[in-house]
Structure formats: C-alpha cells, structure tokens
C-alpha cells in the first residue's frame, strides 16, 4: 500500500506527484530554485467529508451563538449538532461502502490524512459516541427547573463566579451555555482527525483541536463549580504539559528522519529509504533521536489514553467534569487516542517494535494492575469509573501490543464496545441525584435496586460489561483483545490481564452489592426521570452492550475488514 495520491504542497523541482518525492525528504522540501509555478494543493473533499461536516457545523454553531436569539439557541444548536453528526456518520458509512476502508483505502489531503479501515471504523465509533453524548449534553429534565427555566448540566454562565450575584442573575435570566454544542463538535472534529492523522503535524494539531474544547467543557459544570474548574485547570495544565512532550518528540523524530510523514519516517526507520541526503545519513545514524523521540510521542498519546504513569489526571478530571462531559471524554477521547496510538505503532514504528514492545508490556501491566487495585477503595462512583477506565486502557494496550492484524481489529472492537458502555454508565450516574445534584458518593447508592430496580439493573448490566462477564460486550471485547495478545505471543500479559480482571471484578461487584443487597438509606437519593434524550443514550448503551455480547460476529467482521492500515 504505497501512497498513490500524494501531492506536495510546496514543490520546488516541478515534480507534482511522484513516489520519489519522499526521498527528497518530506512534504515541504526546501526551496532551492525560483518558483516557476505554484500547484494548488489537492484536497479530496469527499474523502474527508466527515471531518469537514463536523468542523463546519461547529463553525456554524459559533455563528448561531452570535446571531440566533437566546431562546431558540438550544434547539438550533441541538438540531445542528445532531444533523451534523448524523450526516458525518452517513458520510463515513458511504466511504466505507465505497470500499475506502478496505480495498480502496488511501491517503488524502496531501498525505495529511489516511482514509483506511481503522480510520473509518474509529471515526464511525467516535461519531456515534459523540451523537449519544450530545444527547446527554442536551438533557434538561434532571435538575429541577430554576425560575421556570429548564436547566442542563452546564453552568448558566461560565464566566460568572460561583455563588455570586451575577451567577444568580444569569440563572434567573435563563441563560444556558449552549456553547457546549459547538465545543463538542470541535472536539469531535479533532478526534475524527486524530486517528486518521498521517503525519506528525496533523497528529499534533488534531490533538490540540480536540483537547482545547475539552478543557473548556470540563470547567462548565452547573453544580460543584469549584471542582469543575479545578478539573479544568488540572486537565489543561497537564494536557499542555504532555503536548509539549509530544511536540518535542515530534521535533526529535523529524530531526531523525527529516520528514514528519508517517510513511516517510517508517521508511527511514526500516532503512528502506532511497535517496539518502548527507544530512539524513547523519541523523539516521543517531538512534537516540529516534528512540527518545518515539518515547516522547508515545508518552503524549499514553497521556490521552490514561495509561499509568500518565493517568493521574484521569480520576480528578473525570470526577470534576460535568458528568455528560466525563462520559464523552471517557469514551471518545479514548477511541481517538488509541486510534492514533495504533497508527503510530503499526505504521510509523513497526520497525522499532522490538524496542517498544517490552516498554509497552510494562506500561500495560502496570496500567491494568494499578487501575484495578486503586479502584477497590474508591468511594465516589465517578472516580471509580475513572480508575476502571484506566484498567481498561491497560486491557486495550494488551491488544495493541499483539502487533498482528488481529490485534488491530480486536482493539477496534474493544473500543466500540467500551465507548457505549462508558457513555451509558455515566448517563446513569446523571440520573441518581439528591439535593446537591448528582449523588456520586457510593454510600448514597445503597439500596438503589429496591427503589429503582430498572435503573439499578441497567447500571448492573454496564458494570457486568465492565467486569467482562460473558454475554456482555465487555466479555467479547476482552476475549478478542486477550486472544489477539496470546496469539501475538503475549501470553503472560493475558495472565496479568486475567488477574487484574479478577481484582477489577471485585469493585464492580461491590457496587452491585451496594445497589441490590444493602438496605436503602432513608434520606437516599432520588432517581430522576430523564427525557427521551438520556433514555436514548442509556438505551443505546444497553442495546450495544447486549448485541455485542450475544452476537458480536457482524461487528467483529467489520473490525476485521477495517483492521488494515494504509501506509
């Protein structure tokens, strides 16, 4: 799978489209001669339509904020978002139907983006997860009405100081932060690009594009604003910190290979590169550049997936962020970040796998164990789910390490399964409320099964899926990942995975025990009756969980077909 539709943006030697271009050293070869003619870059708009639709809708959303009256903004924004996500998803499906994910996969936008199976699969997953998340964003029935206005999970006015008069005024005026919709769309747009990024620059930009809106979204909780802001600050500072590392890694890798294109770097790493310039010959000999650069980029991505020891933001941010945002982050970010990680490891660094595999082994083991162990003693349901997501990141890493086609498809499948369970679980968390908003302390969940058997049962289904009990999607995913790992020669990793699954099962079960076998507290929380929006989100979660658990074959086929990276 060589690059077929690659054009250089700034070519100097008149070559407009040539395979040999890479030999010159990258996208933007240095200008040596006067410019004769500027070729316009070739952008295959249809191939990147999903991203364009979402980003375009996000821009439109900004305009809506500016021009549409406050009253109707919510409806317009919701409509816009849903239409955008649905049509983007339709575009993804259309591309996939075109065979763009399998036989026709290739590279688009001057080599910046890959349009291949994993990209389309993950984009589809992200769009669906995003759509469901937008439903939970739009939920306005959970909190009691404030001054006759329905309110959602987000602060009336983010700029106002919590508890201040201006905030009360904003509430009274019925302000709502409808900006969350364009923000979410921006984030989704970035996430769509992230796993499809085919050069390091696009990777970096995509990372920032989806991170920055998320930082903001974290800060927007209506209740517990202080915690929300704290989460945002932590997320922001640590995120920026990690992206600095990522960028430095990019710089080093660029220094090593003289190019930022994935394929180009891979050629250099593999030693199959033609036309070695003297400068390249010099840097190619310097493995330290390669190794340190690769390690730093890995670190940036591992931060996003929440792998130990780069996980420490996760519990705090998950806890502090508005719960719908947490669900969205936990699901979509993970999907996007693992997509990028996969592409990086499988496309750019396969030649280095003897170097990174042992390291990733270590990360995976530590991640699985620590996530599971620390979760045991958690007392807040959101923090508990955060640690659970860390453990799951470890499981997925086990599949990543397989370095087989099965490894790719198993990770894809796992991500699909996991994201819906996660969104569903967090959506249930939004329902259980007391006077202070969501009742996230575990002790308040005691006896929930008696009061609201259905909600408790649904949550139990999600927990069982997290725990990987058969007949749920969690089991199918876990099995796929572990099978791939075992086949890829990582049997020991499977054993560790199994052990940490056992540990993890303990705390999922603890919650179930609490819900069903503990006596309800008299002043326990109530379960709010949600609007169809959240119901849909939860319903989709349950449906996906069960379908993927009982009859996963179709989706496994899909993941299998999608499991090949273009290069």
């Amino acid at each position, binding site marked *: 799978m060589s690059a077929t539709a690659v054009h250089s943006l700034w070519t100097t030697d008149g070559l407009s489209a040539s395979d040999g271009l890479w030999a010159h050293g990258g996208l933007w070869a240095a200008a040596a001669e006067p410019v004769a003619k500027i070729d316009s870059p070739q952008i295959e708009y249809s191939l990147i339509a999903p991203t364009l639709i979402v980003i375009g809708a996000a821009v439109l959303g900004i305009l809506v904020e500016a021009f549409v009256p406050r009253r109707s903004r919510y409806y317009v924004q919701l409509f816009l978002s849903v239409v955008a996500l649905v049509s983007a998803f339709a575009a993804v499906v259309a591309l996939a139907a075109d065979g763009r994910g399998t036989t026709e996969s290739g590279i688009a936008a001057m080599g910046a983006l890959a349009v291949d199976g994993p990209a389309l699969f993950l984009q589809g997953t992200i769009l669906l997860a995003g759509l469901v998340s937008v439903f939970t964003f739009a939920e306005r029935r959970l909190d009691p009405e404030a001054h006759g206005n329905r309110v959602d999970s987000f602060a009336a006015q983010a700029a106002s100081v919590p508890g201040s008069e201006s905030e009360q005024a904003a509430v009274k005026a019925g302000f709502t932060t409808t900006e969350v919709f364009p923000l979410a769309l921006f984030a989704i747009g970035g996430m769509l690009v992230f796993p499809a990024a085919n050069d390091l620059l696009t990777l970096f930009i995509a990372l920032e594009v989806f991170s920055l809106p998320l930082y903001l979204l974290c800060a927007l909780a209506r209740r517990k604003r202080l915690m929300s802001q704290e989460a945002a600050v932590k997320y922001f500072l640590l995120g920026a910190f990690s992206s600095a590392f990522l960028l430095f890694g990019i710089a080093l890798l660029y220094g090593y290979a003289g190019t930022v294109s994935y394929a180009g770097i891979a050629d250099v790493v593999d030693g199959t590169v033609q036309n070695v310039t003297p400068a390249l010959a010099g840097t190619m000999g310097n493995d330290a550049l390669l190794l340190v650069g690769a390690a730093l980029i890995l670190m940036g991505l591992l931060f996003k997936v929440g792998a130990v020891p780069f996980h420490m933001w996760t519990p705090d941010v998950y806890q502090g962020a508005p719960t719908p945002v947490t669900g969205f982050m936990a699901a979509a970010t993970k999907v996007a970040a693992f997509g990028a990680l996969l592409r990086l490891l499988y496309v750019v660094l396969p030649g280095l796998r003897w170097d990174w595999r042992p390291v990733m082994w270590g990360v995976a083991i530590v991640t699985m164990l620590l996530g599971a162990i620390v979760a045991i003693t958690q007392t807040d349901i959101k923090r508990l789910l955060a640690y659970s997501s860390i453990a799951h990141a470890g499981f997925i890493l086990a599949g990543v390490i397989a370095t087989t086609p099965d490894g790719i498809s198993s990770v894809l499948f796992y991500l699909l399964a996991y994201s819906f369970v996660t969104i569903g679980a967090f959506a249930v968390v939004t329902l259980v409320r007391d006077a202070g908003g969501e009742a996230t302390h575990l002790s308040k969940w005691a006896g929930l099964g008696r009061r609201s058997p259905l909600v408790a049962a649904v949550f139990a289904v999600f927990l069982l899926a997290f725990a990987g009990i058969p007949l749920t999607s969690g089991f199918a995913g876990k099995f796929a990942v572990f*099978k791939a790992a075992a*086949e890829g020669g990582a*049997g020991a990793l499977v054993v560790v995975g*199994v052990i940490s699954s*056992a540990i993890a099962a303990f705390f999922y079960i603890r919650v179930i025990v609490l819900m069903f076998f503990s006596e309800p507290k008299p002043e326990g929380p109530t379960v709010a009756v949600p609007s169809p929006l959240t119901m849909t989100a939860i319903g989709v979660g349950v449906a996906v969980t069960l379908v993927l658990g009982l009859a996963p074959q179709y989706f496994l086929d899909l993941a299998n077909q999608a499991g090949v990276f273009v290069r």
Partner: protein
Amino acid sequence: MSFPLLTATAVVPAVGAIATAAVPAAKRTAAKWLALFFSLATLALAAVVAVRFNTGSGADRYQLTESHSWIADFGVRYELGVDGIGVALIGLTALLIPFIIVAGWHDADPQETGNTRWRPTQGFFALILMVEAMVILSFEATDVFLFYILFEAMLIPMYFLIGGFGDRAHSGSDQNAAAQRSYAAVKFLLYNLVGGLIMLAAVIGLYVVAGTFSLTEIAEMRASGELNMATNTERLLFLGFFFAFAVKAPLWPLHTWLPNAMGEATAPVAVLITAVVDKVGTFAMLRFCLGLFPGASEWATPVILVLALVSIVYGALLAVGQRDIKRLVAYASISHFGFIIMGIFAMTTQGQSGATLYMVNHGISTAALMLVAGFLISRRGSRLIADYGGVQKAAPILAGTFLIGSLATLSLPGLAPFVSEFLVLVGTFARYPVIGIIATFGIVLGALYSLVLYQRTMTGPVKVETAKMPDLKLRELLVVGPLIVLLVFLGVYPKPLTDVVDPAVGHTLSDVYGDENPDPEPEVAAK
C-alpha cells in the same frame, strides 16, 4: 433440519424466566405458577431427550447434535450435543428445579408491602429458571467457548439469588444478616469469577493451540495427529481449566465459599448451588479436562486424587464441627464432591460411572436433606443445631424425612448414593488401593456427621420452642416425598441410569487410554 430439541430444553426455562419476570407485582402467585409450569415443561422436554437418546452400542458419542455458526471470528460455534453423562445431568437439573420452586414457594414473598416497583418474588423465580436454562445449556455445549460463556454467566443469577434472597434465620453470628449474606454472595462470585478468569486464559490458550473450540473437531485433530500441543502447554491449559472446575466443584482448598453461600442462601437456593450448579464443575472435569487434555489429566492425577482425598476427610471432619445445620450440609457436600472428583480421576469405568451417578444421586440426596432442613429452619427461625432437639416428637414426618435424607447422605445401602459411592471406591481402589482404603474412612465420618446432626436436632428431650412445631404440610411433603421415592428407586434399580452413562464413560476413558482397556485386569481371570 430436525427440531432443535436441545436448544428447546434451554429456551423453555429462559422464556419462562422472562415471562415470570414480566408478571406484575401484584400477581405474585401467578408468577409462581408460571415458573412451576415452565419448569415442568422443561422436565417434560428433558424426558423427551432421555427417551430419544440412543444407548445402543453403536450409537454416536454426541447425539441430538445441533451446530450453527456463531462468532466465526473466535472460532466459536453454537454446537450442542449430549452424551449419557449430559443426559443424566440434564435430567437431574430438570427434575430438581420444580422441587426447588415448590420448596421456595414462600421464600421470596416480599416483607414490605406497598412498594409496587419491587418484585422480589418474580425475580426469585425468574432467576432460578435462568440458572436452569444456563446449566442445561452448559451440559449440552460441545463447544468450549459456549460452555465457558455459560459457566461464567450463570454466576450472575446465582449471585443475585444468594445475595438477594437470604435465609432470614438466625445463624448464631453477631454480624448483621444482610452483611453476612452479601459477604457470602460476593465470596461466591469472586471465587468463581477468579476461577473462571483463569480458565479464560486457558480457553484463549487452547484457541491459540488448536484454532477451534469444537470438542469434536479437537478430538478428530487429536486422532489424526494434527493437534500439536506441547506437553507443558497441555499441562498449563489443563491446570487453567481444572482450577476453574475445582473452584466450582469445590475441591479443597478452594472450598470455603460453599459453606458461606449455602449457609446464607435460602435452602432451595442452597440446593440449587450444590445439587445443580456445582455439578457443572465436576461435569466439566469429565468432559473438558479429560476430553481436551488426556495426557495432562493423567499427569495431574496423583495430586488431584490426594486433594480429593483431603476433601473427603476434611469436609467430613469439618461437618462434624459445625454448629449451623446448613453449613454442616455444605461441608458434607464438600466431602461428597471429593468422592466425585476421586471417581473421575481414578480413570476406571467404575470410578467414572460412579462419579456420574454420584453427581445425580448427590443432587437428589442433598436436595432431600437440605430442603427438609429448610422446612425445619423456617419453623424455628434458627440455623443453629443447638436450638433444636426432640423435633421428632412434635413433627414425626419431618423427622422421618430428615432421617432418610441423612441416611442418603451417609450412603446407606438401598439408597441411591450407596451405589455411586461404592462404585467410586471400587473404581479408585482398583487402581490406587491405598487411596481407596483411606477414602473408605469417609463412610465412617459420613455416618458421624449425619447421625450427629440427626441426634442433636431430632432426638433428645423436647425443647419448649420445638414442642409445638407443626409437621410437614402438603406442599412440603410433595417436595420431599418424590425425592425420597427417587432415592430408593435409584438405590435399588440404578440400571436405567448406568445404561445411559456407561457408553459415555467409555468414550471419555477412550480419550485417555485409546483402545486399551481402562480398567486394571483382575488377578484371577473371570470365568
């Protein structure tokens, strides 16, 4: 395509579970009858399976097979088929569930009224039927993965049955009942889950080695020499499988969940645990450990036999030391499971036939004893042996049935468990005389705990609390009576059962020994 009989045996209770769960809160009694109806329908289907099953000498090993593609990507097929062992255990399961339902008729009646959303009764019976469906299907699965899924999935309804519907009787402990119960439920789940997860690793390993989960395909591959399994791999995989089954069965020292679970659960659920669900573990040892890893099974036999022996003696001794009736029965079961496992790994025709019969007989006898114990406990509200005494004076029928249950537990000749226990002993003795002899001590200890229990509860001076104890009601008699009849019948005429089981045991042993005669030849040739 013929009628999918085996699927139907599992679908009927599953549908019953859903139907029962859907009954509105107020129609509690209707839910009970509905559950009973479905369990009886399942029994009828199981009877059809037994009738259709061909015990002739040339019959296939797995019969009534069904095979459909399921998860091709994992090499998983929905493959069903029964051998004689499966038929026997399906029969046992289908038979016991109606009794369990009738015995637990009032166990899940809600204590609080007015909460219209809380429907414990419906849940209770639905969960029981769900367990039945899963257990039956697991006896039918000839695909390792399908079996594994059911093996794990059945933990969940069991878990809710244990933790959600506990015994309200006083257990002599200061801890609050709810805490104890949820401890027991969690312990049950975690033990079995850990076992299951370790098995998961082995299941994956098996796939890596064999590339398929189908028992028949693996057997063919083995026969044609295509199966390339290194000795150490085989042993590791065997251990992974065996560990899970040993937890389930349970084998010493992985047994401690059972007394807690059986103690805290209601008596019918305790029966469900030990008489039905745990049998999946021993069944799986026969079908999967021996069928998939014959070499490793032989290799592990000495250790397993010793553990089984320890179980037998240890379980019995601990049973003697118990103060709680239900825990006593639980430890007795541990002892009995030791016998079953010993019979399986003695690798003789008598041993394995005996073990299979033992599974059935232990199911019936424990059901009889435990259900009567449950009736007893419900009358006095205490599980402590010391709280009883002289019950036979007030409730002679109850005492009589309890005695028969106890006698079955101590394997009195004439009752079904004797046949199986003796076969196990003979089968073991034939190959491992010393182990066989030591295991024989189990029969003395069995008598000890059974009779101590009977003596302390039923005989002696009448206590004030027990003086007015009502005797068995009709419903209770309907539960116990048939079980006792069955115990006697199978003790006197076990041939229908051995006819079904023997060919299957022959197949299982031929997995291990090939065409050789599995049994040691007697010194003096028979005439």
